[in-house]
């Protein structure tokens, strides 16, 4: 299945792009997707656990199962205001 993955702020700069599509295995968890990204981006391996994640523009827990067509983003520490 295929998901859309968005990158923001420091994560965007670390991975070098703001958006991509990825093919992932059925049943992939949010935490597993983070581990995949950690294999590509050294910065991401420094996180003791996955950062807050959003699926389809809502916060989800790391054990959420991804579905085909999901819009997924891992969120650096937010700093609005």
């Amino acid at each position, binding site marked *: 299945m295929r998901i859309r993955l*968005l990158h*923001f*702020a*420091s994560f965007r700069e670390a991975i070098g792009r703001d958006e991509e599509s990825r093919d992932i295995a059925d049943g992939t968890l949010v935490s597993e997707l983070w581990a995949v990204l950690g294999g590509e981006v050294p910065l991401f391996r420094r996180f003791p656990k996955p950062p807050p994640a*959003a699926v389809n*523009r*809502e*916060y989800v827990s790391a054990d959420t199962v991804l579905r085909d067509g999901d819009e997924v*983003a891992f*969120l*650096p*520490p*937010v*700093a*609005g*205001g």
Partner: protein
Amino acid sequence: MYLTTSPIDLAALLLEARPGDGALCLFVGVVRDENDGLRTTAIQYEAYGPMAEAEMARLADALSRDFPAVTIRMQHRVGLLSVGEASVAIAAVSPHRAEAFAACRAAIDRVKATVPIWKKEFHPDGSSGWVDPTVSPSGTDP
């Protein structure tokens, strides 16, 4: 729309009072010239736009439940802001002042805690860096 790329129109936020409202509390976050001892010349605000809109709408719903007498308006600016420019503004109007203050304070605290917006500070020496409130407590200010 909670996000704007234009300067926040405070006067428009203030137009909110209804005849039964006796109190208005407005909070404005302003770009400071300093953060954690580093001089700041400008801040770039970046948002996960559609999620930030959705999250602020959820926040507004939650605030209406927590403060039923209060009407809240919020705007957050994105883009490159200079020192002295307003980054966020929240207006809370209500019959009495206690709940206007409480709701306004709760709103800015929640905006800062959950809305997917990030800021990169630019320093006079040309360097820049993303603000991480989780490692720099005062980075959460204002």
